[in-house]
């Protein structure tokens, strides 16, 4: 974290910070629904071991940028490299946690079975689920304090618990890059604490974390980098440099009551 801050303030880049080798580098990304661009010409780099919040007003294209950079949506233009390689050759190193609302929670499946989906690369089409696979899934559930729920039908969980199951599924993949879409939306305080603890552990292990985030008051506590978006990129960099009143004003305009947002370094 400190090395990144130093690197950027010197104007030079460390090896992992460089777009050619970074866990994820997005160049010239434009995504549109019909004739209206939702994301316009965005460049972004997520350095190794960093934890980035993607913030911006509603409809700023935060989730869209995430989805397009994973190939879930087809961008109009733009290029994504993952650890310096084409996206498709590195998919096994990426874990994606989609928005909770994207799923039908009445689906006939259990918590454990959902987490086992994280092991689909190992299981392939036909390999049987062995006790060691189950043990690994349970271990991931334990990391988000959900092991007791392993055999519940997923619809019986609260929103926060569902979010933690999604995180456990991502952990089961053993990935190096974690992309989360609004992981704290509509979850209880206990869940928020559990999720942020897991993410910080991942960061400490040298993994890279990127999360679409909507709560400006926790940005400085949770993250070390921000990407501020309002269709095009407003600012990007370490929280201390980029998370300024000026850039927030530029992104949110009059919609932001800055007085209520804690922890923003006032631009001098």
């Amino acid at each position, binding site marked *: 974290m400190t090395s990144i801050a130093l690197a950027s303030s010197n104007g030079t880049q460390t090896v992992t910070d460089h777009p050619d080798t970074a866990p994820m580098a997005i160049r010239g990304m434009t995504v549109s629904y019909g004739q209206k661009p939702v994301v316009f010409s965005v460049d972004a780099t997520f350095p190794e071991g960093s934890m980035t919040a993607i913030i911006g007003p509603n409809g700023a294209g935060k989730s869209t940028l995430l989805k397009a950079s994973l190939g879930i949506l087809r961008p109009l233009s733009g290029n994504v490299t993952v650890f310096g390689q084409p996206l498709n050759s590195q998919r096994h190193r990426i874990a994606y946690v989609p928005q909770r609302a994207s799923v039908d929670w009445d*689906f*006939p499946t259990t918590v454990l079975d959902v987490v086992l*989906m994280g092991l*689909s*690369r190992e299981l392939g089409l036909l390999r049987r689920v062995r006790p060691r696979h189950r043990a690994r899934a349970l271990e991931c559930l334990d990391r988000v304090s959900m092991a007791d729920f392993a055999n519940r039908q997923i619809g019986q969980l609260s929103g926060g618990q569902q979010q933690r199951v999604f995180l456990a*599924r991502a952990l089961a993949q053993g990935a190096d890059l974690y992309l989360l879409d609004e992981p704290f939306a509509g979850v209880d305080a206990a869940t928020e604490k559990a999720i942020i603890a897991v993410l910080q552990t991942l960061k400490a292990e040298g993994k890279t974390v990127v999360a679409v985030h909507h709560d400006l008051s926790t940005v400085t506590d949770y993250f070390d980098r921000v990407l501020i978006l309002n269709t095009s990129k407003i600012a990007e960099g370490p929280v201390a440099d980029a998370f300024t009143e000026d850039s927030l004003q530029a992104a949110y305009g009059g919609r932001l009551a800055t007085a209520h947002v804690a922890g923003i370094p006032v631009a001098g």
Partner: protein
Amino acid sequence: MLWQALTLQLGYNATLVAIGATLLGFAAGVTGTFLFLRRRSLVSDAISHATLPGVGLAFIVMVALGGDGRNLAGLLAGSAVTAALGLLAVQWLTRRTRLAEDSAIGAVLSVFFGFGIVLLTVIQTMESGRQAGLDGLLLGSTAGMLRSDALLIAAGGALTLILTLILRRPMIMVAFDEDYAAARGLNIRQVDLATMGLVMAVTVVGLKVVGLILIVALLIIPPVTARFWTDRTERVWLLSGLIGGISGFVGAAISASAPALPTGPIIVLTGFSVFALSLFLAPNRGVLAAILRHVAFQRRVHIRQGLLAIAQGQPIYERYTVRLLHRAGLSRPDGVATEAGRARSAKALMDEKRWEILRAMPDQEAAAALYDGIRPIETVVTSDQLAEIDTYLASPQEVSA
């Protein structure tokens, strides 16, 4: 007669039909599950209706080439071609235009079916067409089933089943969470096409036995029926296959036991009766279970509320509550608590306070989630944990004392 049919003693043809229908039912039940999980069951309706023009075209081509227009393998191959076209048309309309899938299904279904009927009418006027009996493929006709037909149906059903089981993991992943599946590198469009291709294969194989109009029932009824009984994906498809297979076998047997009972419709009605039974009797999701659960829950809530009111010295206003308490020997007819009622109400109040503490304990989330206002706390925590809870319960009282 029915018993003889069920034990396969009604002769060669009936046995062939029963075996074919069983395999078909099993394959349709399993394959249909993945369409059901993807919430696209109705696509099968478009696919099945789109088989008809293919049947007519195949007949015309085979006759034109000097062959037997009624060759089942040829007819099924033709039906597969137009069914695939229909399927691609639905896919294309849904993806590339603003039409919603239901509209696309309606358009494709009626146009293809209409064209098929035109072809069949033309064939009726052809020299060699009068005896073709192609309309038997509309509702299925098993009367003149040949051994080779039965083998074709069995082999096609088995092959489809095997392919479905091989592809089940990607199909489940896409059905549950499309975005996640795409992020993992699955090609959603290809997986969907595979799912529907398998459904198409079952449809084509099933034309002879149940016909194109009713095959939809064999693809939809078994999975929705199975869903009543289980919450696990792996069990839904297995159970769905069993329900489909049993419907096929029993339906074929019933229809063989009397002269004027058409096989396809009887199979569908058999499947429906299993559905109707499940709808009412399934333990968790069934209608009856839901009603009973609601009534029982309501009674327990009333009694609990009554007991808490007694413990706090408040009057009970609801007559239903008083009646329940009286019937349980906890109060007099006028609502005044009996000895037993006072004991139970003290216990209820204690329980409520303990729950309050438990629900505030961060490490007891799984237990706390079981709170429903009536469950005794001893059933969710150990005696050690209960003692721990009681230390919290005791402390404020000590302060006030």
